[in-house]
């Protein structure tokens, strides 16, 4: 018995000694690991590559947790509200910028943060007017067309032009469809919303306003039953059912389906994130590679100048992460933000416009594609692609249901559906 006790003592002493020696010797200490949680988009992977480059220099190991896009917001929201430290760095987006503002650390002190575009940050200020994100790339809705079918002179400037050129190409048998673009929830931007904004319209009054105080002062009144919005729904109803420039099933398409049709060469025009430029021009994936053009949006009768959205995807650091990890994460994010070569590489690999505006000038001087993107998107008027308040997910879903109901019903029912819909959108905005 005494022998056994001695053995236990010996083993305990040995374990303690090894532990103390390991702590005292930095070389023996395990390297720090930061866990990055994101949705697996190529841009996120490319941005992580930049972070990884700097992490290696700092002796930090980066781990990745992929979370499916469909469950990303609920999963990470639950993680943040329960104080879990599972993720040291999380993918952040303007759509849910306000949902998480109280759970993520401020980022005003991250190196290079002064060199990012200011307007896309609007979604990410907390109640103390401190920033809560570090941009990784810009996300820009872009009007793409087939250069081999549509000459420079024919590039549509108005919605009516778009219908005309679409029908012409369909009649000539060059394409099955003039236009294809995702429309189902939550792809509303790529058909309904770009036309809404380019017809001088919006979801709430006043148009293009994103200040919650102003919107609240207007009682979150939805204007989707107003003529500017009714025109949009009627335009799309005609496009689907009368002019038939887009497939009737367009209301059900997500990005994959719309991209499949465009990349198969069956449609002349589409709207998608600029980041699909790479896919559209990939000969292994796309029959239209090398024939893709970009142009400013056509406008409706309610507007004379194109307007687009330029928002960001970013990284954020949960407050629940230990302070040492927060500091390390900020350091790496600062290094990513100031790594101009890394951002150029990210642009080349993915088509993700760099977060650092200094890199824009460099790319505009050397890269004709970026120059064109800058011309058609960055240099235009801008609107935010979402509203930045907690009930935005409810509003988006309510809007999508109303619009799809109107588009799949009878044309003469559109005013009534929109009138009823304006109420449901307002109710979603003020729901407690």
């Amino acid at each position, binding site marked *: 018995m005494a022998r056994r006790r001695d053995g236990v003592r010996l083993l305990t002493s040995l374990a303690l000694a090894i532990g103390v020696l390991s702590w005292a010797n930095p070389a023996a200490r395990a390297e720090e690991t930061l866990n990055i949680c994101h949705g697996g988009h190529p841009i996120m992977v490319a941005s992580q590559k930049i972070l990884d480059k700097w992490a290696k220099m700092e002796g930090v190991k980066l781990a990745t947790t992929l979370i499916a896009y469909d*469950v990303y*917001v*609920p999963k990470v*929201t*639950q993680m943040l*509200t329960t104080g879990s430290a599972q993720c040291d760095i999380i993918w952040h987006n303007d759509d*849910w910028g306000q*949902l*998480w503002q109280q759970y993520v650390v401020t980022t005003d002190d991250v190196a290079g943060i002064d060199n990012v575009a200011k307007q896309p940050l609007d979604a990410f200020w907390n109640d103390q007017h401190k920033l809560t994100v570090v941009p990784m790339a810009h996300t820009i809705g872009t009007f793409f067309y087939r250069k081999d079918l549509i000459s420079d002179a024919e590039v549509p400037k108005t919605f009516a032009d778009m219908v005309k050129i679409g029908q012409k190409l369909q009649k000539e048998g060059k394409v*099955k469809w003039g236009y294809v673009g995702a429309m*189902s*929830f939550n792809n509303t931007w790529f058909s309904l919303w770009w036309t809404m904004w380019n017809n001088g319209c919006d979801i709430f009054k006043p148009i293009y306003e994103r200040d919650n105080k102003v919107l609240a002062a207007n009682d979150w009144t939805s204007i989707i039953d107003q003529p500017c919005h009714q025109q949009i729904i009627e335009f799309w109803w005609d496009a689907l059912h009368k002019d038939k420039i887009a*497939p*009737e*099933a367009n*209301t*059900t398409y997500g990005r994959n*389906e719309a991209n*499949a*049709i465009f990349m*198969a060469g*069956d449609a002349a025009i589409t709207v998608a994130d600029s980041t699909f430029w790479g896919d559209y021009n990939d000969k292994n994936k796309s029959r239209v590679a090398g024939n893709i053009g970009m142009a400013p949006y056509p406008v409706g009768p309610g507007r004379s100048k194109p307007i687009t959205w330029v928002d960001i995807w970013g990284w954020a650091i949960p407050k629940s992460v230990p302070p040492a990890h927060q500091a390390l994460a900020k350091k790496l994010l600062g290094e990513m933000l100031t790594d101009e070569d890394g951002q150029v590489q990210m642009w080349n690999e993915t088509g993700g416009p760099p977060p650092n505006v200094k890199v824009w000038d460099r790319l505009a001087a050397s890269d004709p594609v970026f120059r064109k993107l800058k011309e058609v998107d960055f240099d235009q008027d801008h609107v935010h692609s979402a509203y930045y308040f*907690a009930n935005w*997910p*409810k509003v988006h*879903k309510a809007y999508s*249901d*109303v619009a*799809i*109901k109107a588009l*799949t019903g009878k044309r003469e029912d559109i005013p009534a559906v929109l009138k009823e819909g304006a109420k449901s959108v307002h109710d979603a905005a003020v729901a*407690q």
Partner: protein
Amino acid sequence: MVKAHPPVSDGLSPKMAPGQNAEPWLGEKERFMLLLIVPAGIVLVLFQIVPIIFGANASFRDWQLFDPVRTWVGLKHYIYILNDPTFLTVVLPNTFLLMFLSVTLSLIGGLALAHYLHRNLAGQWPMQTIILLPQMIAPVIAAMMMRWVFNDQFGVVAAFLDWIGFGPIAWLAQRWPSFFIVVFTDVWIWTPWFALILLAGLRSLPREPFEAAQIDAAGPWRTFTHLTLPMLRSVIAVCVLIRSIDAFRSFDVIWILTGGGPARSTEVFSIYTYIETFVNLDFGRGSAAAMIGALIILVVAGVMYKAASRVMDVSR
């Protein structure tokens, strides 16, 4: 009601000490039985009972996923849902219609397949494997596959319709075609399950009544309606009961195929709950929807269970 067994006197139970008049509450056999069910019990409590209690608690609170203040709001969420026209006029009818159509059609298809497989024809084994394939595919994958099969541009169905001179049909853009595809997919997945169980039932039936029917020159249809069906009644009842409960909570197939659309027209109870919880991020209201659904299925399952018991009693 499970009656407590008296301490066993088989020599396994501990011997009483002299003067000790109280018998042990549980014998060794009972303790062993309890030990065996403890792991399952712990899993049940942790992953079923506790979440249900949490959910029930959340359903009475203002519990936004992004701002869980958890203020007690009583029956507010329940009142909202029970007054929500979408829940009453779309969600509930869709749920029961899907349940009825899916179970009925799968049962009919399953019976037909079971009969076919029961005939011991040549090449039956490969055919049996092929027939069972839909059951082996995860419902999410089956639903994605169906979404592309019915895609109006690239789908097999679209190509066939095009070949016979029809234009593409926007199946998922209208309520009833979408609903048809949901039912079709569900039936496609679940028919093999019915077939498998009914085949086992068919193979266990005694041969004598069928031989007697043959001697009496009963035709195949008469034999089926007067012998096979009555004798399979108890198997059918159990299948229908289990599958109905499962169909009531169907989620994956509908979510992938239609997402409840177009414009919420194919929403069923589970999609309604998911949207409230994970799209609108309203955990309180989503939990209330789940509780209402649970109560409904409890009542429905209770009624069906009684009916199934009666059917089985008659069959005995």
